[in-house]
């Protein structure tokens, strides 16, 4: 067994996004999910001065800057879709596991768009992960 370099970064994601689930629940106990998304984006804005790259930003290619901005658009439109699904009558216990299946899209897109392939063991890990995330989101 070896620890890949990305493991530590994913651990950061798991801890902080895991904690998000608690605070999101506390928030949506008091305000609507759509309002919480608006205030969540304000939370992103609070971080902006800390991550402001200054002139260094213009050293990166326009294409990659565009990908960075597009990631924010797609992620937050997706979150809006999730909340709209719940608002239009979808039960959280069904909607959340469906939305949690987004890595499936990546499994299909990554070989085509990024020319990445995964090993059989990694594929089995992805399968276990998908089962896990559906069960945990239910």
């Amino acid at each position: 067994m070896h620890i890949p370099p990305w493991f530590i970064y994913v651990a950061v994601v798991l801890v902080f996004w895991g904690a998000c689930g608690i605070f999101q629940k506390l928030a949506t106990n008091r305000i609507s999910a759509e309002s919480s998304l608006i205030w969540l984006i304000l939370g992103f804005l609070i971080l902006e001065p800390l991550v402001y790259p200054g002139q260094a930003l213009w050293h990166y290619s326009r294409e990659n800057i565009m990908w960075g901005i597009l990631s924010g658009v797609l992620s937050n439109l997706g979150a809006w879709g999730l909340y709209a699904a719940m608002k239009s009558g979808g039960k959280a216990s069904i909607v959340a596991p469906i939305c949690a299946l987004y890595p499936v899209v990546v499994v299909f897109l990554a070989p085509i768009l990024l020319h990445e392939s995964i090993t059989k063991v990694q594929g089995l890990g992805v399968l276990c992960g998908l089962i896990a995330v559906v069960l945990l989101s239910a």
Partner: protein
Amino acid sequence: MSIPRIFRVRWLWYSLLCVLLWGPYTIVSKLGSREIPAPTMQFLFTLGALPVGLLLLGVRRFKTEKDGKGIFHATFTGILSGIGGMGLFAAYGSGGKTAVITTASSLYPMVTVVLAVLILRERLTWVQVVGLGFATAAFVLFSL
């Protein structure tokens, strides 16, 4: 021939829209992270989030509930989410496989479930216990 009822419910289409947006979100995050460091990616991510927030605010006629605790918790969620997002950009930038990193990072509900037990005193369901088992198996397989 009539369309099955399940395909006529709006929430299903919204859910699928979410999946179809979050999938490409990870792909473009990977593309940008190959050159741009994680904090700068987070800066750009927020620039992209801003018009969505303004659009949502416009749809709601610039009205949100005025519950102080709710607003605090939601804003704090944004700060935590932003820090976690930087972790994801850093993971993509470190060269790992996108499908593996995306799946591993999508397992964050396992931490939520554990925190809910510890902080909110919620009880684990057997489905969640099985889910934690599969999550553990996934991480063991990723580390082989």
